[in-house]
């Protein structure tokens, strides 16, 4: 750097700093560019085009007319049919969340308390639903639950039933399928939080005279609430947005917002309303995430 002028030293360091900062920012942009472009291209742009579509006019002749209107939103939000649809979807979400929580919590506890080798095995079993393709998994349930499926055939062969149980092509099979798929999400969220609860806390409680029930009720459960919250959030959002499972396991009787979107874009050929429903669903997800954020807001230290 022999060309650097020997002038006021106060100038030189700040010039260098600016160079560093700018260089660092460029580097950051460089690292984030591929991911950003991916998301812009495959998420933001499609969503924007759908958003535009939701404000277009429906036409039975063409798929849509590029004329601005808010009719679609008005129609959807004032029609009891759609409200019922949303309520049923939310209800499904709540049901699946409750079941996965009740099933997942004891499993998570068992995993956390197991010696290392058994722990790995149990985590493997708990994650196994994620290892198979979603569609294949769902069809497997059809095999199990169908009228001539495994369960009904066995029960019939054993003489316990004469008519097949109505466990397929309805909300029962959809619920079962969704619980199966989302249970790993709940279990993992719970295990992550339960693992981090200091074991000494339970020992301290026990030394003070707490029964196992009290330890669970007053120590473990309260401290695992963040895990319950994040697990429930994951399961709920996945469930209300799920398409494959309600579509395949619901026969034609189960209708959720997702399956309705599919219907609007295919059979009904009402693309604008379909796009509107997309954003209704998005709003439902965002509302739940916001609710979760507020409930589990990290408290800052006021020391």
């Amino acid at each position, binding site marked *: 750097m022999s060309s650097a002028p020997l002038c006021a030293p106060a100038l030189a360091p700040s010039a260098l700093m600016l160079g560093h900062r700018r260089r660092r920012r460029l580097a950051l942009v460089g690292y984030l560019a591929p991911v950003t472009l991916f998301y812009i291209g495959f998420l933001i742009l499609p969503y924007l085009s759908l958003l535009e579509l939701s404000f277009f006019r429906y036409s039975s002749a063409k798929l849509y007319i590029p004329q601005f209107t808010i009719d679609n939103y008005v129609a959807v939000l004032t029609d009891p049919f759609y409200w019922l649809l949303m309520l049923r979807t939310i209800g499904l979400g709540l049901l699946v969340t409750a079941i996965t929580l009740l099933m997942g919590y004891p499993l998570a506890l068992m995993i956390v308390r197991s010696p290392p080798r058994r722990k790995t095995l149990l985590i493997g079993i708990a994650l196994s639903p994620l290892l198979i393709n979603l569609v294949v998994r769902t069809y497997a349930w059809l095999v199990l639950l169908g009228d001539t499926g495994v369960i009904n055939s066995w029960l019939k062969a054993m003489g316990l039933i004469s008519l097949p149980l109505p466990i397929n092509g309805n909300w029962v099979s959809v619920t079962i399928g969704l619980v199966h798929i989302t249970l790993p999400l709940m279990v993992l969220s719970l295990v992550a939080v339960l693992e981090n609860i*200091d074991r000494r806390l339970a020992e301290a*409680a026990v030394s*003070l005279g*707490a029964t196992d029930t009290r330890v669970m009720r007053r120590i473990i459960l309260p401290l695992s609430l963040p895990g319950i919250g994040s697990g429930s959030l994951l399961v709920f959002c996945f469930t209300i947005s799920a398409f494959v499972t309600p579509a395949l396991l619901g026969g034609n009787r189960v209708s959720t917002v997702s399956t309705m979107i599919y219907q609007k874009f295919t059979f009904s050929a009402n693309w604008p309303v379909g796009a509107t429903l997309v954003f209704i669903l998005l709003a439902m997800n965002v509302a739940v995430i916001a609710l979760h954020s507020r409930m589990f807001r990290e408290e800052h230290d006021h020391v």
Partner: protein
Amino acid sequence: MVIGPPSPVALPQSAAHAAGFAPSLEIDGLHLSYGGFMALKEISLKVARGEFVALLGPSGCGKTSLLRAIAGFVHPQQGSVRLNGHDVAKLLPRQRNIGLVFQSYALFPHMSVIDNVRFGLECRNVPKAASIERAQAAMALVGLETFADRMPKQLSGGQQQRVALARALVIEPDLLLLDEPLGALDKRLRVQMQTELKALQRRLGVTAVFVTHDQEEAMSMADRIVVMRNGVIVQVDAPEALFAQPCSAWVCDFVGAGNLLRGPLEPAGPGRYRMQIGPDSAFEVDSQQAPAAGSVLFVPSDRVWLDAAPEGQGLQVSARRYLGLSVEITIAHAHGTLVTQAPLDASSRFPVGSWVRVGAEHRDCRLLPGD
């Protein structure tokens, strides 16, 4: 923090204590192993009511295992633990009426300080108002009256330690167990807490057993010290006795009681032996039998006298360590080094490299089995 004037009854008395029960701890022939590893061997110990006993030893000596066996978290394969004369083998930890204080405090992070302290009373179904009152009394004992509604994470280490203590004491346990309770505190706070803890224990008269690897801490707090090594009890004594008469070279070394001189011992008269460590420096010790092979001569650091020697003759001072009020002088000799202490003004005669001679009264010297 200043504890108020001593009063005989610090906590509201519960019925059981009013009956004049005599809590004590008795361990007999305890054996404990994990898998193939023998953690405790043939442990026997009696702790009197109101005594403050330290379990002292290096890492892995079994002191924490012993504490956990007393608490009931591990079950010994052999031997018995008796609290108040009752065999507690069949009792779960929660039934043993012990107070436990952990090194990491283990305060319940989601509960306020007062709820933490009340927890043990809640478990005993004490009505809420009464439990709050007793918890506040316990917090006053440790000087945290105004901290009732704070959360643990808002407290400093020393404050959290006091909450843990209050929580353990409020249930009026028969026995207080502390697992390296002051380990996480800085030196100055640790020394302060040692004094407070000891004063509190004295005032309440609660039997206490605490685990530590810090011999200074054990010396300053305990009525008796149980020195452990590799799962066995090596020596049990009051601190002064332990210091003056360690039973083996290892104990002496661990406790820092004084100098261990390893060298040849020659007979120097009936029942007396001598170890020469320099031209004018020797130590003599009384012993009925001939010293066994590997015996070590022990002489406390403050019993070694120091005198100037002519230039080039004798031993040389190899190091000095300034301790504030005195100086620790290290002298090199034929078989190693030894240390002695001298007051600040006197020590100025002996800079590093100066020539000295040393010795001690034969009464102060002892022969210890080496190991």
